[in-house]
């Protein structure tokens, strides 16, 4: 068990939390507790240097309450309490829940998701942009401690680069060295953010032989593609994102937070226009200023090849620096009393 009485937790089959909590647990040298065997298997396979502990869902609250003081999770306090409320009452002990973001997307400005954080006392944030978002949603003033993560997931990838290179050589079986486009659509949330249903067919149809395409759908997205092309890979159940981003040349997305991660590499970004949003007036679509917005239902490849990326380099610097803080304060969580 952790010497700091801290653990990280993924409750239920929330695969998309894994790439956020696993590197953080590894960084802090604390165990990652999971309640699904599938997640345990993914965590063991893709995250070296990680202590993964599987606990059966019904006995998990009691074991966590008796062994830890602080739990890091991607759950807002209300959801966290619904899991631990009874055990905490019976044990006369209250856990500290430290909220960890699972991405820095431009979502949440039009739906009440972020307002749900107004009860948090402790939170991790990537940097300044997330702090101003919390302020905008009246979820900042009540915070007692805020810990800056910076780009900790990229650092984790760099530390384990060799491990990931080996895995990618086994997973990404393109028999060539062509340019590779990653299409990473988000899921159809309450803001109808996904471009997948509308665009995926014309994207695959227009894939030319001198390009490779990787489609990485959000775990919540129903994605059934009959893959009949040698230069197309549909990547499901591959949680670590930075090893993949390091390999690709161009990113294509919508409202997924992966675009912000890809800014790390300062390479070309393209976007399908978000539904129900007018970009000219939408000050919240920060990421989309860093690349080119494609016309819907048209082949993106000629546009990708013809677009001069140079004008985006400065704005990419500005946005990256506003998202990821350079000075991390992650380990201050050890001082939490």
């Amino acid at each position, binding site marked *: 068990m952790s010497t700091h009485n801290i653990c990280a937790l993924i409750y239920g089959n929330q695969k998309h939390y894994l790439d956020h909590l696993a590197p953080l647990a590894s960084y802090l040298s604390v165990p990652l507790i999971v309640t699904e065997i599938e997640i345990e298997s993914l965590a063991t396979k893709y995250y070296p240097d990680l202590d993964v502990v599987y606990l059966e869902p019904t006995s998990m609250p009691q074991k966590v309450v008796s062994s830890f003081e602080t739990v890091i999770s991607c759950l807002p306090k209300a959801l966290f309490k619904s899991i631990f409320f009874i055990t905490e009452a019976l044990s006369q002990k209250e856990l500290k829940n430290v909220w960890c973001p699972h991405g820095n997307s431009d979502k949440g400005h039009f739906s009440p998701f972020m307002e749900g954080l107004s009860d948090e006392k402790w939170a991790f944030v990537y940097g300044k942009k997330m702090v101003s978002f919390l302020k905008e949603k009246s979820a900042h003033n009540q915070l007692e401690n805020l810990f800056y993560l910076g780009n900790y997931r990229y650092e984790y990838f760099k530390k384990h680069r060799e491990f990931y290179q080996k895995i990618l050589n086994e997973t990404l079986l393109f028999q060539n*060295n062509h340019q590779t486009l990653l299409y990473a659509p988000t899921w159809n949330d309450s803001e109808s953010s996904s471009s997948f249903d509308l665009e995926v067919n014309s994207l695959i149809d227009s894939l030319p032989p001198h390009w490779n395409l990787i489609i990485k759908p959000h775990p919540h997205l129903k994605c059934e593609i009959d893959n009949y092309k040698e230069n197309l890979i549909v990547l499901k159940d591959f949680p670590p994102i930075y090893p993949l981003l390091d390999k690709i040349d161009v990113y294509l997305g919508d409202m997924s937070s992966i675009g912000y991660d890809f800014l790390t590499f300062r390479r070309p970004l393209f976007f399908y226009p978000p539904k129900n949003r007018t970009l000219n007036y939408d000050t919240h679509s920060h990421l989309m200023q860093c690349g080119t917005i494609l016309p819907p239902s048209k082949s993106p490849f000629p546009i990708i090849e013809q677009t001069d990326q140079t004008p985006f380099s400065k704005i990419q610097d500005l946005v990256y620096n506003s998202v990821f803080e350079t000075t991390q304060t992650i380990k201050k969580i050890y001082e939490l009393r």
Partner: protein
Amino acid sequence: MSVAGEEKMASWKEINHKLQVVLSKEIDLRREILGNMNQQEQMLLSGEIKLIEGLLQELSRLASSLKGVIKERGTLTRELFDHLPSNALGATLEEVLDPLIDVEEETLRQYQQTKELVEKIHGQHLRNKSLSDLIQKDGPIEMNNSAVKAETVKRKGTSLITIDYPEKKEAS
């Protein structure tokens, strides 16, 4: 012009020349890719589908080289933009190069040429894909297929177009 100004101008020219060398390589590669895809279309039409495999291998080699050249072009374009004043932020290469200055005109011309080739390559890809889909659906295109044999039907004699003007109405 000051010494610093002259040095800046010399560096600007040098990057333009380097960029032209890279763009020239890119144009050659894109032409080869277009030619390769054109040959693929001929093979699809003539039913020699097995020969396409060899062309695809060649295309793969060309595409790998193109990837390297595009990266080189990106680096040089960025270097070019580093020479520009900060108010050029957000401008494209086409907007910053002056067609009236020799060295820039050549870069601009080559840059536009690559863009035209990109259009042609993707147009050719769509043609090949439609043809390939058609073959997968209906089988190989046979030489007795009426669509392949179709030619313009010649009419007998020259067609005449006559215009009948309405008769002028006499004023009553």
